[in-house]
């Protein structure tokens, strides 16, 4: 099957959705399918050959952060051209609810169209109503909807009506399968690990640091690895000097170092206080064989199989966190059991499995072998002036 994946966010600034799409693309290749990507991009020269640029992204603010997306007649014309030239069996659009390339691609296409809601760009009902007939007309073309979490599914049902199937995010377990630790470290002591933006309160490092003195009192050799971007100076300054020596700040880590750090951890701690719709990092930690302790957010409870695949503590409660951590650090048998349960849990979310579920959705929208084609009724708009940039990678239709 030849699948066209549409990414709403700039390809050159990797974020959750772009990473998801690239992972899905690779998993589809491994299953013997072909996958192309259409995405906004700053630098067209630097794109890999399977990505086609829909033009330069524009920065818009969304949910307190900045999303880099594109819209307007230029990207619409490029999306139409891409659809015409790519000979797709399925068009798989991501995050179609925002004012972005997702909805544009649906608008200019006809045929088997699938969409995935990630919920990071959920439009308010007011925005949707303002553009209602056109947006609704485009939404009606989507033959199958996927939501990556219950949270995403709930917002889809609320804002656009209809229903979706739940297919979770995937984790590539093979990236975490080994057991090589960071140089000079090893598992088997009392090493805790945190990964996430250090200066982002929702990631909850402050909760973990507040619990640390009590943990150190009960488990004197406890150490903490802190990985992730952000200024860590205030973190160390706020700690008692004796404790500060036990906290090792790694800063931003590469993919390989992330796996090594997880292999060095005896317990992975996710003290996030909110705003998480899934928790992919928990799966990565479990795939790497690190027992997980996480706050009892709904999303985390679900990933941890209601506490069977990891330990939960009361959200934003350092006292409870300290209790759970001390219990676990003193109980190697329980850690070993959680390690086994965690690996099994992560395997259920392995990309090979997740991608097969996505292919099942593709199968159900292509019963007659119908192809994706350009919707001519929107052609008028597409003739708006657009600076044609020759794309050396795709060439002429007959060359591909």
């Amino acid at each position, binding site marked *: 099957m030849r699948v066209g994946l549409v990414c709403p966010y700039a390809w050159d600034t990797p974020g959750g959705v772009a990473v998801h799409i690239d992972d899905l693309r690779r998993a589809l290749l491994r299953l013997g399918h072909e996958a192309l990507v259409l995405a906004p991009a700053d630098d067209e020269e630097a794109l890999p050959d399977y990505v086609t640029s829909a033009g330069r992204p524009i920065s818009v603010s969304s949910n307190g952060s900045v999303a880099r997306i594109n819209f307007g007649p230029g990207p619409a014309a490029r999306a139409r051209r891409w659809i015409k030239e790519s000979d797709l069996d399925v068009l798989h659009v991501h995050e179609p609810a925002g004012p972005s390339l997702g909805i544009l691609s649906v608008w200019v296409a*006809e045929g088997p169209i699938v969409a995935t809601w990630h919920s990071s760009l959920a439009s308010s009902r007011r925005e949707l109503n303002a553009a209602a007939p056109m947006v609704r007309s485009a939404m009606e073309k989507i033959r199958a*909807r996927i939501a990556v979490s219950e949270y995403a599914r709930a917002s889809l049902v609320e804002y656009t009506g209809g229903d979706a*199937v739940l297919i979770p995010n995937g984790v590539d377990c093979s990236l975490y399968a080994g057991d090589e630790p960071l140089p000079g470290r090893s598992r088997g002591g009392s090493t805790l690990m945190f990964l996430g933006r250090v200066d982002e309160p929702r990631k909850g490092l402050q909760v973990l640091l507040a619990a640390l003195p009590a943990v150190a009192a009960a488990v004197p050799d406890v150490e903490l690895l802190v990985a992730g971007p952000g200024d860590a100076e205030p973190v160390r300054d706020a700690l008692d000097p004796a404790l500060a020596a036990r906290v090792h700040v790694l800063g931003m880590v590469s993919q390989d170092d992330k796996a090594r750090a997880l292999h060095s951890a005896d317990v992975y701690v996710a003290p996030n206080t909110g705003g998480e719709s899934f928790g992919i990092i928990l799966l990565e930690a479990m795939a790497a064989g690190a027992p997980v302790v996480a706050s009892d957010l709904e999303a985390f409870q679900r990933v941890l199989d209601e506490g069977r695949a990891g330990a939960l503590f009361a959200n934003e409660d350092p006292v409870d966190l300290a209790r759970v951590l001390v219990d676990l650090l003193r109980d190697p048998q329980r850690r070993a059991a959680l390690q086994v349960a965690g690996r099994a849990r992560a395997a259920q979310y392995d990309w090979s499995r997740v991608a097969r579920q996505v292919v099942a959705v593709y199968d*159900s929208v292509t019963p*007659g072998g119908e192809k994706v084609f350009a919707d001519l*009724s929107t052609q008028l708009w597409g003739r708006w002036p657009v600076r044609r940039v020759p794309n050396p990678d795709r060439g002429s239709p007959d060359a591909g």
Partner: protein
Amino acid sequence: MQVDVSLALLVLLVLLVVAFVVWRLSALAARIDRLHIRIDLARSALDAQLLRRARAAEALATSGLIDPASAIVLARAASNSRNADPGDPVTRGVVESEMSRDLREVFADAEAIAALSEVPEGQELVSDLAAACHQVALSRRFLNDGVGAARLLRAGRLVRWFHLAGHAPMPQTFEMDDQAPPALQPYL
């Protein structure tokens, strides 16, 4: 002279309004038509998956790998499913729901399924049935999603007043119990 100009403007205005209304109505009719096509495709996808599920159950029934009592239950459910009249969706829904329940009864025991899937042939049959059960639920959800959208659109005033849906019957959802045997989940 003055009269003629305003008359011409009035005619032009009326023409513009008529053109706009016709354009709006034809766009609406095109949306309805598109949804009907989507529903037809979704229905044929569901038909194909129900047939695939019946075949998978039949294959297991005749494989000689499961006990005779279970084989009879499966064979009967599969044959009922194949003989169900597609023109009578209510009865068909009941028959398919019974099949779902039979499947859950036969494949209730995770250990028995594990033993069955140790044989290479058995593993293929089991994963095929698991996939078919999963696909039935998917296809039915996508069908009903399309039906919901079409019914919503057809409930609009413009659509009813101008008979934009033509003679196409109001699309109906397909109701059945499509829950797959939980013990088959790992073989997906």
